[in-house]
C-alpha cells in the first residue's frame, strides 16, 4: 500500500506543484512586459495567475498523500520528514501570503491601468518584490525535493 501512496504523492507533486513553480516563475516576466504597455502579455498574465491559483489548491493533495505514505512506512517522526513538512508550510505561507496577493496586484495594475495614487515606480517595485517571493517559493521546493531524495539520517539509504 505504501508503494501506491508514494506513487500518487510523487505524481501529484510533479504535475501540480510543477505547474505552480512554472507559473510563478513566468508571471513576473510577463508582468513587466504588460506594465511596459505590451497588451498581448495581459491574457498570459491572467492565465498564469489562474494556473497558480487552481494548481495551488490541487497541490493540497501532495502533503496529504505524503503524510499517509510516511505514516504507512513508519517514518512520520523522522527528522528529514519533519523538516520537509516545516519547509512545505513555509512554502505555502510564501505562496498564500506574498505570491498570490502580489500577482493579483500586478494583474490589477496591468488590466486597469495604475491603482489610485500609484505610480509606475510603485508597480515596478511590486513586480520586483513578487519576483523575489516567487524565487523564494521555488527555492524552498527545491530544498524539499532534495530532502525527499537524500533523506539525511535515514537508514534505508539511496
Amino acid at each position: 500500500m505504501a508503494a501506491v501512496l508514494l506513487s500518487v504523492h510523487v505524481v501529484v507533486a510533479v504535475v501540480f506543484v510543477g505547474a505552480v513553480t512554472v507559473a510563478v516563475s513566468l508571471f513576473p516576466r510577463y508582468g513587466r512586459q504588460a506594465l511596459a504597455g505590451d497588451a498581448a502579455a495581459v491574457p498570459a498574465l491572467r492565465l498564469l495567475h489562474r494556473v497558480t491559483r487552481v494548481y495551488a489548491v490541487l497541490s493540497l493533495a501532495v502533503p496529504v498523500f505524503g503524510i499517509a505514505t510516511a505514516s504507512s512506512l513508519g517514518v512520520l517522526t523522522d527528522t528529514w520528514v519533519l523538516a520537509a513538512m516545516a519547509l512545505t508550510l513555509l512554502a505555502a505561507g510564501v505562496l498564500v501570503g506574498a505570491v498570490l496577493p502580489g500577482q493579483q496586484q500586478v494583474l490589477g495594475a496591468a488590466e486597469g491601468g495604475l491603482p489610485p495614487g500609484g505610480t509606475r515606480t510603485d508597480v515596478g517595485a511590486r513586480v520586483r518584490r513578487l519576483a523575489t517571493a516567487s524565487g523564494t517559493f521555488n527555492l524552498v521546493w527545491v530544498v524539499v525535493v532534495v530532502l525527499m531524495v537524500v533523506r539525511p539520517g535515514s537508514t534505508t539509504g539511496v
Partner: protein
Amino acid sequence: MSESPTRWLALATTVEPATLAVLLVDLATVHWAPLASAVGPLHGTAYLVTAVLARQLPLPRGVRLRGLVPAVGGLLVLRAAGRRGAAPGG
C-alpha cells in the same frame, strides 16, 4: 470569477462526506486496511480543498470559516451562499 470556485466547492463537498462514509462503513464492517489507506488521503484532500475554496468565496468571514467544519462544512457554506444569492440585493 465566483462561479468556478462554487462549482469546484460543490464537487469537493460531495467527495468529502462520501469518502468519510466509505471510511466509517469500512471501519464498522470488514475493516480492510488497504481501502482505508486509499480513501483516507482522498478524504483528507477533499477536506483541505473544501476549506480553502470556501475561504476564497466573496462571503463574510464567519460564513467562510464554516468550511473548516469536518464532513458538512462545504454544505454549510454552499447553503449560506445560496441563501445570500437568492435574497434580494444580498
